[in-house]
Structures are given as structure tokens and as C-alpha cells.
């Protein structure tokens, strides 16, 4: 069985897809549509969207730690603050930006 390669690497600019699939998913609405940078590749994990319903979670999805500037996530976030938000996002929710 061929092992899949991670689509993204640290430093890549990525955008979080917008969507609300039926059932369980782990990408919070507040981060959907936002653009950030891949901070780390955690590895491949079983897909929670399938696991939640007794599925095997296959195919595994690569999971990324993605870094966002708070001022990019929230319109009202006070501008000079260097604050960030780091979220773990599955590959099928990310697209190149």
C-alpha cells in the first residue's frame, strides 16, 4: 500500500476551506476561510469525521499545526499586538493560498 505524502510543509501559506459537512467535523467555523502558515506537520491520523460514526477513519489524513495572526482572524483584534492562534487542521480542509 503506497504511503501518501503530506501535501504541505512548514512555511507553506494555506487557506482553510469553508464548509459545514453533515455530521461531525473538527474545523471550527471561526477559522474557516482564514489564511495562515503551516507551522508543523504532525503526521497522518485517522479521520475523525469517519471515526465519530464507527468508521475506520481511513484514509488517514495528514494533520497540520497552522499559525494564524490574530489580527487576520478577527476584524476587531487590536492591530499592534503580535498575538497568534495555532490550530491543528486536517489536510482535506486546507488549500494552497
Amino acid at each position, binding site marked *: 500500500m503506497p504511503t501518501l505524502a503530506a501535501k504541505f510543509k512548514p512555511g507553506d501559506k494555506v487557506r482553510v476551506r469553508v464548509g459545514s459537512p453533515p455530521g461531525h467535523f*473538527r474545523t471550527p467555523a471561526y477559522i474557516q476561510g482564514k489564511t495562515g502558515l503551516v507551522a508543523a506537520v504532525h503526521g497522518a491520523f485517522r479521520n475523525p469525521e469517519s471515526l465519530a460514526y464507527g468508521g475506520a477513519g481511513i484514509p488517514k489524513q495528514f*494533520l497540520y499545526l497552522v499559525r494564524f495572526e490574530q489580527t487576520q482572524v478577527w476584524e476587531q483584534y487590536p492591530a499592534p499586538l503580535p498575538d497568534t492562534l495555532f490550530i491543528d487542521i486536517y489536510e482535506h480542509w486546507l488549500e494552497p493560498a
Partner: protein
Amino acid sequence: MHEHGHEHDAHAPITDREELTYYEKRVYAIQSLLIEKGIVTADEIRRAVEDMDSRTPALGAQVVARAWVDPAFKARLLADAKAAVAEFGIDTGSLSTLVAIENTGKLHNVVVCTLCSCYPRTILGVPPDWYKSLSYRSRVVVDPRGVLREFGLELEPDIEVRVYDSTADMRYLVIPARPSGTEGMSEEQLAKLVTRDSMIGVAKARTPNQP
């Protein structure tokens, strides 16, 4: 009225809530079925609860204290926290992945699970109620400094406040910054300064002079 053979102050009567919530009833129903079908035993459930109750923030505190005194251990902890924590004999079997994140003079980390209540239970025990509250989960991502202020922590504007939202398999443990004035203290003494709240990120570690 109750009869007591021992002396103590008057207290409010101990009352149980009379009605279970919908989800409590559902949990008990599923639990009964699982036992009835022989999938688990009542004792297995009790032992799992007992195991979780036995875990406390003291486990995490000893890990942090060692990271403070032993740079090689800290490096191992930052590289692979699950393996490093296992060096203490802590059973990490049920833990998927643990990541240690370090606070420095320029960076302050705080952890949340906006979607539910993901928390490094294996090393900190059960999370506090406020961590699971809608208020914390929704507000700390959008206004972390405001929430930290409510916990009594004010951070300078040049410090990066970094919120980790544990949305997936990773569990995050904050390594608070070692307080000044702790030179020469033993690991055991240092561990007493490491609080649960400092390992979540809503507080700094205690200083030696704090009561």
C-alpha cells in the same frame, strides 16, 4: 434532621438533585446495556474512573520541574513529550500525542479546546469546570488577553500571546517560565511552584515568596 455522634458546625443539608439530565440518563442507559451484554463489567468502569481520578496536576508539575533543572530533559520533552513523560513511569497508553509548549520572556502560550474539552488528562487529571465552559472556550480565542486578565494575568503588549486550539489528536502541555529567585531549589521544591493553571496557560508559575 440527622443524628451525629461527632461535633461540627451546622451545615446546609446534603441534597442530591432529584432529576437526572437527559444526557446523564442516556449515559446510564448505555452503560447498563454494555454491562448487560458483557462488553464491559461494572468493575472495569469503576477502575477506569478511579484511574482518571488518581491523576492530578502533580504529575505535570514534576515534569516541568525536571525540564527547568535539566536542559537535556527539556530538549527531549520539547521533541517528544509523550516519550519524555513516560520516563517518570506515568502511564501514557491512552494518550494519542502530547506536545509540550514552552513559555519564554517573549511568548506566552494558553491552551483551549473550543470544540469540546480536549485536555492532557493523562498528565493533569480532570480539567476544571471553567475550562469546559462555553465562556472560556469561546472567549479565549477571540480575546485571550481579556480572559487572562480575568485570571489575574496581565501581559505586556510586546509579548506574543499564542492560543493553541486543540482541535485534533494533539494534547498540549504548557511549560511555564521558571520564576526568578528559584536558583538552587530542588526539583521537589520547584514542582510545588508549578500549578495546574500555569500548565494550561492562564497563570504563571508561583514565585517562591507567594503564599
